[in-house]
């Protein structure tokens, strides 16, 4: 029993140390927010321009009333579900100049091209 209490405490502390910096990073987020809409199996706009070397936040709104969307870019290790009718913020780290394709992993024909320059 005592071991159980101790291990749950450990888990809580570990979770806290994990959440705190992430929450702090989110709270003082003054980074640019870029809106993106998903509906009808496509992203709107289909192409976005961002500043290279500067982190930004992708604010993805899923307008589909039923289908969830999973915004994914494997190279950037981004994989985030946006449930139907929801808006989710996705932090994207500073990018080198170039073109980055994000897909909807649940519907690979939906793509958005992000150009960092």
């Amino acid at each position, binding site marked *: 029993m005592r071991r159980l209490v101790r291990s749950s405490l450990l888990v809580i502390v*570990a*979770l806290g140390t*994990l*959440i705190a*910096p*992430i*929450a702090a*990073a*989110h*709270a003082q987020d003054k980074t640019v927010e870029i809106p993106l809409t998903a509906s009808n199996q496509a992203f709107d706009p289909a192409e976005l321009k961002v500043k290279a070397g500067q*982190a930004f936040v992708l604010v993805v709104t899923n307008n589909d009333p*039923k*289908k*969830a969307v*999973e915004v994914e870019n*494997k*190279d*950037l*290790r*981004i994989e*985030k*579900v946006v*449930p*139907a009718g*929801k*808006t*989710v*913020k*996705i*932090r*994207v*780290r500073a990018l*080198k100049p170039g073109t980055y394709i994000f897909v909807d*992993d*649940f*519907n*690979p024909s939906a793509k958005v091209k992000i150009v960092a320059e």
Partner: protein
Amino acid sequence: MGATFVVVLREGFEAALLLGIVYAYLTQIGHAESRRYVTIGGALAVVASIVMGVAVSALSGPLADIGPDVIALVVIFGAVALLTWHGWWMGRHAREMRGDLQRRVDEAHASQQLWMVGLIAFTGVFREGAETVLFLWGLMTQLEDVSGWTALAGGAAGLIGAAVLGWLVFQGGRRLSVQRFFAVTSVLILFVAAGLFSSGIGRLQSMGLLPGGEPLWDTSWLLDDHGSIGGFLAGLVGYRARPSALEIIGYILYLAGATALVLPGLFGRRAPRNGNNVVEPATPSHV
């Protein structure tokens, strides 16, 4: 239909593989009755996935933004810890078994650890579980037309396909000799864990909690991790066509450390074969 089949098969494959190994493992050590721990762990993970899927759909704001990331990190690093421990434990038992092939693992010694096997099953299923729930849920809400039904059929076929793969692993694992099975799964699990560990590092980088993130090299011309073989290897051993420096370092360090921990038991010295057939006493475990 084909697309939904692939999505569900891919999400379900890792879970099926882990379950197949763990089921075969329990059979191999003569604890077939303890497979219920695994079944319970897997079933609880399905429930947790549904709860998580509902929560993600219901919540909004910062909790919905970072909550799934935090849970994903906890599950990834939790799974790495469990798999490492599991590999270490299996390696130790392989050594004991070489002393007396027919001898079954000491009952009390083993049962003390078996709830951990259930936990491994839980993390394996839960890892991609919530996403799969959300995806299948989306399919189920579109049943009013024919394409909705074929999409759902594809999703169901994907689940079945993943289950069949897990079952094949289970059947294959059962037929291998005990030592070979232990050697193969111990090494495989180390690579799975190394892949998970480096993917956790990659996630921390993408969230800005670790520096860097630029790819160090690009082998997508040789094997693309978006393709079927590359994607399979990505899920299994963490293959990345464009890995970051930290991910590579993490992968190598993990593999080196875990190998030092596990392999001496697997391929190290033989247990002494005494004339009076005394078996080495198992060292007490502290878990």
